[in-house]
């Protein structure tokens, strides 16, 4: 994949993710509805590839308004990833040379890899995660399960122990997928299914749409690493 194609694909997925978020904001309080409408229009322009630098500049400005308005992200990690993808794509357009363009996109690929690896690391050093108790508490007591039926999963400690270790191992070994493109694509499919499960069980739908926006970039990054080494 060429760098230009990678940027275009990432912008299309990012545009869709921002459009999805914006439609939700348009059901919120008055100020959110206006900002949501503006961002929805910008997201359409981004998907169409019209004036990407200008559109991304405007999206960044509206994102800063949101961050100021909410004293941080509204939707935790998904807002962080949205802003990070947006910023890196914007920088890739601003970059004076191909080298700096690659630095901007490389940083995004690195953060995507860290988003899995660091999550796995903080879990594996936690005894509650290793025993399966942490996931059991997430299902039993946290505000995340989408229904009472999903809460009942807390009564299946053995299943949750297997799930806990499945998540930990996958997240920890994710960086190894950079060694081979086929393995990376398989890892990204598994990661997307993991986000789908989180959306289905815990209602984290925005994560499911925004994380894949960085996937074309990490696929390009892996090929670039393979080229260099």
């Amino acid at each position, binding site marked *: 994949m060429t760098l230009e194609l990678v940027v275009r694909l990432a912008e299309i997925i990012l545009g869709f993710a921002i459009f*999805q978020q914006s*439609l*939700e*904001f348009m*059901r*919120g*309080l*008055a100020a959110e509805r206006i900002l949501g409408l503006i961002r929805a229009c910008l997201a359409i322009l981004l998907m169409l590839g019209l004036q990407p630098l200008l559109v991304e500049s405007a999206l960044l400005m509206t994102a*800063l308004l949101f*961050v*100021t308005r*909410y*004293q*941080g*992200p*509204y*939707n*935790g*990690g998904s*807002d*962080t*990833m949205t*802003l*990070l993808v947006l*910023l890196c794509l914007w920088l890739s357009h601003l970059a004076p040379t191909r080298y700096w363009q690659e630095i901007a996109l490389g940083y995004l690929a690195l*953060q995507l890899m*860290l*988003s*899995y690896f*660091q*999550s796995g690391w*903080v*879990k594996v050093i*936690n005894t*509650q*995660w290793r025993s399966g108790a*942490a996931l059991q*508490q*997430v299902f*039993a*007591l*946290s*505000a995340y*399960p*989408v*229904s*009472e*039926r*999903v*809460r009942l999963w807390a009564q299946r400690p053995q299943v949750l122990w297997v799930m806990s270790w499945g998540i930990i191992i996958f997240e920890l070994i994710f960086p190894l997928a950079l060694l081979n493109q086929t393995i990376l694509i398989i890892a990204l499919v598994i990661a997307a299914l993991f986000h*789908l499960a989180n*959306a*289905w069980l815990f*209602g984290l*739908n*925005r994560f*499911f749409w925004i994380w894949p926006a960085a996937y074309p970039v990490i696929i390009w990054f892996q090929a670039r690493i393979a080229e260099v080494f």
Partner: protein
Amino acid sequence: MIKLLFPILFPSWRFFSSIGPSPRIDVAFIAEKNAEPQAWLPFRSLPEQVGFAAGVRRLLHNPTWNERLYINTCAEHLFEGPSDFYAQEIGARLVNAVLNREMNVDGASQYLVFRIRAIEFDAGQVRDEVVFISQPFLLQAPGGK
């Protein structure tokens, strides 16, 4: 601004690194500003189950759930200490939900009060403790009479 942007530019991806107390929001309606709440109702209690079609719909569009997550984030900030900003954020959204007829209110009720409970496992037992009770919020749209 730098303080707000730094964790976004250099994020720490520590999802579910530890399981702390989980917030639950209850609301009560009162007729007068200084009245004592009589009955607390859970805000947006969970459905028994979410079917396949609803699950697909929620995957694409789920504003109330994401607002619920934001309210919980605000509540977690209030666990750490008093904050007028986060209390106002929660209050405004609860009032908006009532005005959108998510909850039934009798005609005599003029104000809404909310409380936050913290739920956590403690020594093998579930501990459920009220940690915050808000000031009354007038049940009217912003700028309304």
